[in-house]
């Protein structure tokens, strides 16, 4: 090859990486240079060939799952280590060494376990809430009528979620769907509050809960969760925390 432009500049031109001035200059040159014209045709045909060959390698679903699991584990490890070191520091001076060790072990079982567990579940719920807001994910059954939504869950869950409409109080029921939280099939009821959506997650939770009522805010989402009998309830939304508490008081006065 003798034309210098045919060796490098032409690639920048083909890839759209030249600025406007250089691109226009090259186009003027291209009109007169047979070598560049044939080189450009070559680059184009190679490009087409690669595009049509279908050689792009996607990640397999198995590997994707494995990676997700590992990341969950890794995330769990870091928060568990943090909690346990904090506890140790507080308790060690109070009890003797042995008592401290026993206490740490006890705490690991009864306090940290549920705590990190509830932190993990909260993270999962926020995940589920965010996912539900993606187009087409919010509702499996769309109805403002509780007598339509309630039977829809029949046979889909091994428990019966309480379904009520609170339109008069400013929280109209708009629909429901199935979700999975903490490995359980979960009922998700969707309420609206002005222009915000509120997800109410309901799932069976029979383990002893250390901190039955809690609430908080993360990434701009508020959540309120509580226990009633063997059921766990959690409201999540970008609506105000006071709205969530109001709705909670309607559901369980």
């Amino acid at each position, binding site marked *: 090859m003798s034309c210098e432009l045919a060796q490098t500049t032409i*690639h920048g031109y083909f890839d759209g*990486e030249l600025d406007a001035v250089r691109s226009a200059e090259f186009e003027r040159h291209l009109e007169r240079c047979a070598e560049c014209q044939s080189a450009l045709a070559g680059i184009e045909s*190679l490009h087409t060939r690669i595009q049509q060959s279908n050689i792009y390698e996607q990640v397999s679903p198995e590997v994707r799952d494995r990676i997700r699991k590992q*990341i969950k584990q890794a*995330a769990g490890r*870091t928060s568990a280590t943090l909690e346990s070191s904090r506890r140790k520091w507080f308790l060690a001076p109070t009890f003797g060494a042995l008592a401290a060790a026993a206490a740490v072990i006890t705490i690991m079982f009864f306090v940290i376990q549920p705590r990190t567990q509830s932190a993990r579940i909260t993270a999962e719920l926020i995940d589920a809430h965010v996912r539900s807001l993606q187009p087409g994910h919010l509702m499996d059954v769309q109805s403002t009528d509780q007598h339509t939504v309630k039977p829809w869950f029949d046979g889909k869950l091994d428990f019966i979620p309480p379904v009520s409409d609170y339109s008069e109080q400013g929280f109209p029921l708009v629909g429901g769907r199935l979700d999975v939280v903490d490995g359980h099939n979960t009922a998700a009821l969707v309420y609206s509050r002005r222009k915000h959506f509120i997800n109410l997650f309901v799932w069976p939770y029979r383990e002893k809960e250390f901190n039955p009522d809690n609430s908080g805010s993360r990434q701009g989402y508020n959540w309120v969760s509580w226990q009633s009998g063997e059921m766990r309830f959690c409201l999540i939304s970008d609506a105000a925390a006071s709205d969530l508490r109001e709705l909670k008081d309607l559901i369980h006065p």
Partner: protein
Amino acid sequence: MLEPEDRIRFEQLVLPHLDSAANLARWMLRDRADSEDVVQEATLRAFRFFGRFHGGDARAWLLQIVRNTCYTWLGKNRPAELMTEFDEDVHQLPAANPETLASQADERQRLTLALESLPPRFREVLVLRELEGCSYKEIGEITGIPFGTVMSTLSRARERLRQTLTVAAAKEAF
């Protein structure tokens, strides 16, 4: 310190690019099983370093880690492959054997073998540009090749791939 919300952010920002990661690793290592291990390792590593990610191009950030993990893996397990960079014009990897190439009736297989025969440094820019559609700036970020050199590297890589395919086609004609 990674908080639970970091995991959510990681899943939202970084995990959507697992296909890109898998594709780059597969072409760098020329082996599916090995590349799966490396993608897994690289993604976990990315998660550990996620605190250092300050927004921007999450795909380029992940691919940079995948690419480095690939080179580390190659250096440990197949150091000979990295040596070919020094005499890239003389040495060809086994798959480039023109007879092998020419006998491949399947276009997909032919292109695969031709691409696999290129030195890793050519292969990576081709994969990033032609399969991943990365800009020169992104290619520079991912590979560490200075921005001004991306174009000429890509030019040589394309030329080499074209030659390899032409030789194969000529052999086939006989």
